[in-house]
């Protein structure tokens, strides 16, 4: 072996060692995350930095554990951010899970989170499975065909709950930013199928607003959408912060 080969091997060994070291840095405990509670939801960007696909088994396990019902929403949320195709299957299975006539608010919150999470999954992986699932979900009667059992207490009937589930599918498609999702939402707005008419009419303002969300995600990505909203918020705040600063300075100079 000549010295160049030896040097190359040394560099490779060092690089590999460094890489291994980086992989050995453990991500925060997933169970700690899912048992937490954010007042205003969790940051997509932060979670996507903190966790990776190694969290998927634990998240799926949590979704399959009745003991974690209060935490299902957070598990579902993270699964779409870090998971792959397997995550898509697990999220769909979770959405359709349940065989009792009623579900708790926590369970329903998790169903909503799972559908939004499918949107994140589509955004990251272009999952056709998840995309088709949500697009079909824009037709309320599909949920009967899928035999999704369990109605949340604030829905008076299965028909009303089907409309709710379609709304969640709408959220997921908007958050995906996928072109086909945009087409489906636009078609719903402009030329709904007969069986979609009631849904479209009941959620007209929501559909309009979330089509804008879709546009933002399509253009900037999910993290970029968050950054955009944050910048808008700061622009709105700027006059108030300037005024507050001016008052503070005036107080300090008061004799």
């Amino acid at each position: 072996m000549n010295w160049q080969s030896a040097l190359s091997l040394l560099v490779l060994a060092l690089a590999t060692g460094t890489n291994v070291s980086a992989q050995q840095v453990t991500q925060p405990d997933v169970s700690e995350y899912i048992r937490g509670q954010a007042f205003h939801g969790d940051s997509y960007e932060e979670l996507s930095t903190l966790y990776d696909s190694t969290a998927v088994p634990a998240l799926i396990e949590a979704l399959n554990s009745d003991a974690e019902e209060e935490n299902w929403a957070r598990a579902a949320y993270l699964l779409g951010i870090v998971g792959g195709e397997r995550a898509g299957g697990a999220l769909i299975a979770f959405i359709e899970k349940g065989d009792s006539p009623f579900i708790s608010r926590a369970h329903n919150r998790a169903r909503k989170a799972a559908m939004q999470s499918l949107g994140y999954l589509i955004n990251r992986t272009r999952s056709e499975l998840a995309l088709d699932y949500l697009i079909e979900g824009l037709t309320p009667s599909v949920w009967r065909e899928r035999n999704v059992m369990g109605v949340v207490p604030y829905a008076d009937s299965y028909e009303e709950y089907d409309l709710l589930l379609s709304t969640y599918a709408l959220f997921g498609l908007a958050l995906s930013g996928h072109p086909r999702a945009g087409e489906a939402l636009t078609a719903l707005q402009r030329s709904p199928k007969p069986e979609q008419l009631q849904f479209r009419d009941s959620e007209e303002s929501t559909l309009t607003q979330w089509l804008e969300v879709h546009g933002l995600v399509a253009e900037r990505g999910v993290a970029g959408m968050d950054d955009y909203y944050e910048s808008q918020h700061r622009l709105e705040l700027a006059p108030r912060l300037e005024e507050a600063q001016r008052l503070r300075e005036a107080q300090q100079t008061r004799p």
Partner: protein
Amino acid sequence: MSVRFFAISVLLFGAVFLAGQRSVAYEKDTEIGYTVATNTISAISETWREKGDDRTDLYCAYWTWDDYGWYCRTWALELNDPLVDAYSLSPYGGSTTRGTDVDTQRATVRYDFLPAVHGKWTAQGEHYVQQWVFVRYCSFRNFCTGWIPSRLNFYYLGATAAEHSPIFLDIARYTSVSLSESTVDTAILPDATELLQTNDGPGDVACPISFRRNGAISVFSVGDGRINDSAEISEVHAVSGRVKVVEEINWCGGRAAPTTTLGCSGPRGILVERTSNREGMLWAHEYGHNQGLWVSGHSPNPNFLGYFSSVPTARRVTQRECDLMREPVD
């Protein structure tokens, strides 16, 4: 002979026992040697009630007797406020006892405190108020003195009454939301109050405010209980109430709300979902936003209420944050 003695003993015992159980309408006067009541209490309602409404009662919580007869060893001032315990008042120099244990010793007779006194509440210095009551002493055989003015001193533990500023919140719920006044009064608001009033560590202050429900929880039917877009959130923000409890918050602050959002502060109040975890902390956090806190970003410190997540440690508030939270409610 022995049977007679036994019978008399039983009768005497029975008389004494029954006497210990009876309720009596007597108070001890100060001429015998006590100041009627001097004790410390930690909070006092500033909204005293009217005569005859059976509220704000002064009663004897524990009767006992000595050579001079029956006397009240422990007075209790019951504020009939769901968030304030009944406080026991011991004779001058005695120890304090506090709380609901006096309920088991409660005499049946009560006095509306306001009409029992001739005068007004007067602030005596910074830490106590003083009021006069009329008391009389009655012996075991029911021989009573006349009514004699006595003085009750109520001391505050630490803070003055003015520093315990109750913040009354108008609360409204969407028609399908399940939220009882009992849950608000015994869990949510006390939890929110406790975390603010407790000094939890460096950088924290014991913020002397307490949250109270203002009237009945009103019910609204505007919208469908779900906030999905800017029009719906404006509609619900316009509903009367500082706290509005809804089913879902999917839009907040001009944007699609991140999944699992539980609260949202608006121009005229806060919106919250029900949650089984640290609901009081959620309300306190959103209230802080509504008072102008953390508008340019949450606290990065998980020990502070301004942190973005309701971790168990997120309980501290700085002096500035406390001051802002105590600003008058519009």
